[in-house]
């Protein structure tokens, strides 16, 4: 694979948001939930970073640590760079992450999917309702403590 770790991009984000981001190695950046929106907006709008393409959003249930991870895979189509992976950790009892649908429209359906299957809520999402399962269903099957009826 011709993938390289986007070191320069990570260094720039570290410098700009020293309070908000923490590199985890391997091209992964942990972002504080409260700062996710501004970091994401900067990544998208800064002409040197130009992360114009949100490839995927994934929820991971780390039940042992009592938290969910939301994982964002970001690329820049303009620079043909990436991936830069953002990870946000939220407590399992109160899983709320700001929605990025206003920054990348592609986030809209993916956040709905994560909400539907994992039960992580995205604050500020324009239309946060179930997408694959039916309205009125009360469980989130990708959670590790999911029990079939």
């Amino acid at each position: 694979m011709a993938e390289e770790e986007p070191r320069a991009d990570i260094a720039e984000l570290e410098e700009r948001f020293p309070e908000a981001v923490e590199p985890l190695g391997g091209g992964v950046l942990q972002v504080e939930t409260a700062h996710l929106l501004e970091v994401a907006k900067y990544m998208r709008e800064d002409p040197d970073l130009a992360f114009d393409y949100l490839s995927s959003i994934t929820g991971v249930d780390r039940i042992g640590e009592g938290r969910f991870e939301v994982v964002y895979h970001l690329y820049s189509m303009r620079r043909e760079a990436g991936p830069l992976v953002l990870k946000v950790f939220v407590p399992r009892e109160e899983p709320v992450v700001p929605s990025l649908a206003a920054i990348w429209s592609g986030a809209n359906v993916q956040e709905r999917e994560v909400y539907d299957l994992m039960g992580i809520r995205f604050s500020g999402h324009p239309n946060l309702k179930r997408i694959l399962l039916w309205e009125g269903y009360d469980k989130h099957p990708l959670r590790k403590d999911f029990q079939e009826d």
Partner: protein
Amino acid sequence: MDAAKLKTETITLNVGPQHPSTHGVFHMILTLEGETIVDLEPVVGYLHRNHEKLGEGFTYLQYCPYPSRLDYICGMTNEHAYALAVEKLAGLQVPERAEYIRTIMAELNRMVNHIVSIGFLLNDLGAFFTPVLYCLKQREKVLDLFEMASGSRMMFNYIRYGGVARDLPEGFISAAQEVVGSFPGFVDELEQLLTENEIFVARTKGIGILPPDVAVDYSCTGPLLRGSGVPYDIRRVDSYSIYSRFDFDVVTRPNGDVFDRYMVRIEEIRQSTRIVEQALGELPEGPVMAELPRTFRPPAGDAYGRIEAPKGELGFYLVSDGGDKPYRLKVRSPSFINLGALPVMARGYKVPDLVAILGSIDITLGEVDR
């Protein structure tokens, strides 16, 4: 009667879940003003079987037959994406010969996908079953090759992490050369039938326009994105596997309408033909599978493997806890995400155009709903 007192109101029209143009079970709620689409809400999930949860229940090897059940037109590329993710997770090296075989299979699969997609687009437009019959006939030749190599025509279970399940059978190369040799003529013939056909052009040119910045904003990939003029092809950008060794062009078209997506697919069939010819010519000898331990346990961590599948970026995100099963398996499905841009493409066009627009995105519901 005073014309100013006439009032109009929008009406709601349900298309699907059972409708031939959806090629599966897919539901669209249209808001119409006369015949014009004001808004569209896609409703998906009718084929949902929680594929990702199933993935957590199998070992890495046991999961191998399942990717081809996602987008059942493109089994080979699905398996390739999964294999790539596992290899990245575990740091596996794939033997040369296996890389070539994978490339041959993946590109043959792209050719199959595009001819099926074009054929069914014509079906949707009302050219009932004549064009698609030509396409399916051509597709059968490729499926014969897949059957020779894997024993199956659709659910291959052939590309595995570490290589491919078994070496090519005797006679495969010459059979493949013959099939690939028949493609340029076939594509020319298809173009003669369609590209300048007055009705086809009238139904597709200027329809369902997706501007390039909107396409990127909606995370669109594949022919849908390149039809809007964005030259983004993961085979080129990541040059995964051995794509850097082959000559091929990244095809784009400027207008972002249904016709240009069709033209991108036509041209991509030709480019894939080029790649397969080169790979068949250079195929090295050697093993087709890496040495793997009996119990396969990738180290704890995560990896994202992605490929340029025929429909766009197909990615598998795997999280390992060091056990023999994935802790989390996520499918980044191009059909699902490209479909997110359907409302943008449909607004302002007429109801019959919708059928063409949907067909031009090229979705498989098995992959949308997972």
